[in-house]
């Protein structure tokens, strides 16, 4: 099997056993990039030269017999909203097309310390607003399983890169499903950790109270390894949780006996693909057969979560994105005066969806509407959170589909923002509640991967990993690889 199709933990063993070198591995992934990038278009910026420098350093360590981390020398990809010192960070927006941060995000620092190799910065929906990567200010990314389809989003480039073998692992960010949904669409494992588990310092904000960084990997084991590296308190992020980070690989246990699963009926919405529903039910049956217990539960405020999200996230975004004004960084269009400059700059360089959400959020916060929209949405958020609190009094995990359908065709929902927003209906409540959730492959429909979402209570990542690992070990869905680039 080609090197680029392996998982990080497999490759780590081969590196340590000196069967391969980090440079060889990096080369293999970069050659793969050259072969398929034209079709997939996962990357906005590739950092080829630096990748080799990083790989050589790892080879030197191995040669000296030094211990290395599991991600050392393993090529990965970073979503382009994670700040990288000296490497442009665009958020897939024209306004930041030339922005080079003078600092690294905390997660990037942690990965550098772990000697990870960076292939590049991946495409995304502009400022992480979207679920298909069609809102990129640069180009569309294609789903490696079917190039006519979207890879999901907003971390579509990260998911596509890992699915296509252009990276072994990747980081994404998840505000309403932006890690889990593309992971589901691309047949990968994606986790949104508990809000505050991973430092957001250096993650370009979309909706600060919802954003969270997490891994997109080929299996649950890699997910645990990446979590071990990126989780933890950060003095630079006041909202990061100050508790010890467990060794998540200790939860890689093939055992769900006695695990109490809740299945919320509200998540099986109208418009759900029957094949998706079938796959979820089959997965539950399987887990029950493995010793888990299952019951139907009710989360009555689920139906309001989407609306609340589309008030709260845009409200925060309207404030977070106000700084893109052409004054001291980013692109500028000159104007007759400062107001004119603001208008021309933002009109020219922000995309349609970003403008839509800024307007939505500005409206929701305006005098006279603030209480009716913003405050009400905050109350709904509390109710949604209470739904989860109550559910977790009786169950250990909640299982739902990650998305109501498999990946849709590029352009299919482009003119229907509401249909697009509906793709997030199963993932959004998780962000509102701040709880962790993982998406894992659980089947195929028409050749496209289906994602199973497992949700746990705050800081319940270990439970998620155990449940997901058990399911994975009893199935082969994660072993599938798209036929992309192969001679047919």
């Amino acid at each position, binding site marked *: 099997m080609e090197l680029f199709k392996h998982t990080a933990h497999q490759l780590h063993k081969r590196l340590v056993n000196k069967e391969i070198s980090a440079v060889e591995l990096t080369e293999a992934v970069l050659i793969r990039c050259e072969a398929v990038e034209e079709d997939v278009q996962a990357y906005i910026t590739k950092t080829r030269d630096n990748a080799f420098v990083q790989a050589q350093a790892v080879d030197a360590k191995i040669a000296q017999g030094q211990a290395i981390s599991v991600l050392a020398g393993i090529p990965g990809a970073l979503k382009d*909203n*994670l*700040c990288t010192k000296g490497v442009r*960070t665009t*958020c897939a927006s024209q306004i*930041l097309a030339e*922005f080079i*941060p*003078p*600092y690294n*995000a905390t997660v990037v620092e942690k990965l550098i310390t772990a000697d990870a190799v960076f292939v590049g910065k991946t495409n995304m929906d502009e400022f992480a607003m979207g679920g298909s990567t069609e809102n990129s200010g640069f180009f569309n990314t294609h789903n490696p399983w079917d190039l006519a389809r979207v890879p999901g989003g907003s971390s579509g480039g990260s998911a596509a890169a890992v699915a296509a073998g252009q990276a072994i692992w990747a980081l994404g960010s998840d505000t309403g499903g932006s890690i889990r949904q593309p992971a589901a669409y691309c047949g990968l494992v994606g986790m949104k950790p508990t809000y505050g588990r991973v430092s*957001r*310092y*250096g*993650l*370009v*904000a979309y*909706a*600060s*109270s919802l954003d969270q960084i997490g891994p997109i990997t080929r299996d649950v084991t890699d997910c645990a390894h990446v979590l071990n590296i990126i989780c933890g308190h950060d*003095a*630079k*992020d*006041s*909202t990061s949780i100050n508790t010890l980070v467990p060794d998540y690989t200790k939860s890689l246990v093939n055992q769900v006996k006695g695990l109490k699963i809740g299945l919320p009926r509200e998540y099986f919405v109208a418009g759900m693909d029957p094949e998706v529903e079938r796959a979820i039910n089959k997965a539950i049956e399987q887990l029950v057969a493995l010793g888990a217990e299952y019951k139907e539960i009710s989360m009555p405020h689920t139906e309001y979560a989407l609306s609340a999200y589309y008030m709260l996230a845009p*409200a*925060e975004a*309207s*404030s977070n994105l*106000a*700084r893109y*004004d052409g*004054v*001291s*960084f980013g692109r500028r269009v000159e104007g007759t005066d*400062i*107001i004119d400059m*603001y208008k021309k700059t933002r009109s020219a360089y922000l995309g349609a969806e970003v403008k839509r959400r800024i307007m939505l959020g*500005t409206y929701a*916060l*305006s*005098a006279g509407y*603030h209480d009716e929209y*913003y405050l009400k949405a905050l109350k709904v958020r509390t109710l949604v959170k209470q739904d989860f609190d109550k559910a977790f009094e009786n169950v250990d995990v909640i299982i739902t589909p990650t998305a109501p359908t498999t990946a849709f065709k590029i352009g299919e929902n482009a003119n229907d923002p509401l249909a697009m927003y509906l793709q997030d209906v199963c993932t959004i409540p998780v962000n509102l509640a701040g709880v962790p959730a993982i998406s894992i492959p659980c089947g195929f429909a028409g050749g496209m991967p289906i994602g199973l979402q497992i949700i746990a209570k705050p800081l319940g990542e270990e439970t998620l990993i155990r449940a997901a690992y058990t399911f994975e070990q009893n199935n082969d869905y994660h072993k599938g690889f798209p036929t992309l680039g192969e001679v047919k």
Partner: protein
Amino acid sequence: MDYEIVIGLEVHTELKTHSKIFCGCSTKFGSEQNTNVCPVCLGLPGVLPVINEKVVEFAIRVGVALNCKILPFSKFDRKNYYYPDLPKNFQTSQYDLPIAINGYLDIEVNGVAKRIGVTRVHMEEDAGKLVHSGATITSSDYALVDYNRTGVPLLEIVSEPDMSSPEEAKAYLEKIKAILEYLDVSDCKMEEGSLRCDANISLRPRGTKPLGTKAEIKNLNSFRSVQRGLEYEAARQEEVLEEGGRIIQETRTWDEGKGISLSMRNKEQLNDYRFLPEPDLVPIIVDPARVEAIRASLPELPDARKQRLMKEYGLSEYDAALITASKAMADYLDQGVQCHADAKTVANWLMGEVSKHLNNEGISIGACPVSPKQLAELIALIDKGTISNKIAKSVFEDMWTSRKDAEVIVKEKGLVQISDSSEIIGIVDAVIAANPQSVADFNAGKEKAIGFLVGQTMKQSKGRANPDMVNSLLRERMIIK
């Protein structure tokens, strides 16, 4: 019609923490432009604020000193508006849950005491500074931004509309300044912008309750401006009302040079700040025990110090108030007393010669070239009779410029007072001999005549003769004659 003036003040003060409110950058004033900056205060994509705990502590200190309730749960909010000195285009401030609320402050104007309500005290970040290319905004082709000040911690102290004259507003501001200085939380330099004041002012027919339409006056950059600006605005509003006009709610800017205020924007143009809870900061939880610990650690405040100066030093209320209005002045007095000088004498020197010299040079007591110890030594020389009061003034003059100790100057210039009666008798006799008419007048009962003779004797002795001895010796010798 007789109108009552209604004034409320919003005071902004920069806190003198070493670092900024949300990052580690220096708060030093006057650094080279854009050198005290980092990704956080520049608002670069992806950065997050982290609260400087010192700011919270200072805010609690001020809240407690202003008799406020410290909220156990307070939070930061974003105040959204576009301005190029604000890199994020929002200011992180406190909106509905400020750190301190419902306090008060006692002031006194012309001997009348008054209690002014303090609505709230909240923490926020300062903005940067625009440097326009031309002389005025409108004549400038471009503006540059200096972000050094961006993120310097500010406290905003908002009063109730409890002041009814520009004098009261000035007294309130002076009291706030004194308290902030005593708490050692701010430099309070209005000229450097570390203390700023906006005023809301309206008129209402005397004896009525409802508030009239107010105008907000900005750019009141000195105590003098506060009083003058408000006097101007009260007169302007009265004129409008007397002519049957209507006050429009607006923001006006005070032009100290021209002595007028001009309209900046009216109510319709007021910003909608779209306040939003700051999602990047966690709420500030203040334990009541912490508040009590801070309360217990507060230094002596102006009112308490005034009382102490009256009680311990026997100063008049007027003198005590004048001296305690400035912490440095009161410190100077206390230090002088510690050096064994009589408090009243030090106070008189402070309000007399010292203040005169400070005012002449436009410097504050902190920069006084004569130390409290030096002044105490000078006073000791007077007490011992080594020099007279009059000579002491010239010695003080000399100390001010030469920085030398009083004793050194007295020795160098041979200014030691003549207290040897035989030496004085010699001069006195000569003066009596030279001024027979005055002697005759005195003996005829004209008490005034002795003044002239004393003056002559002092002149002859080059001011060094002990004046008391001169006086008594003159009387003695004239009777003998």
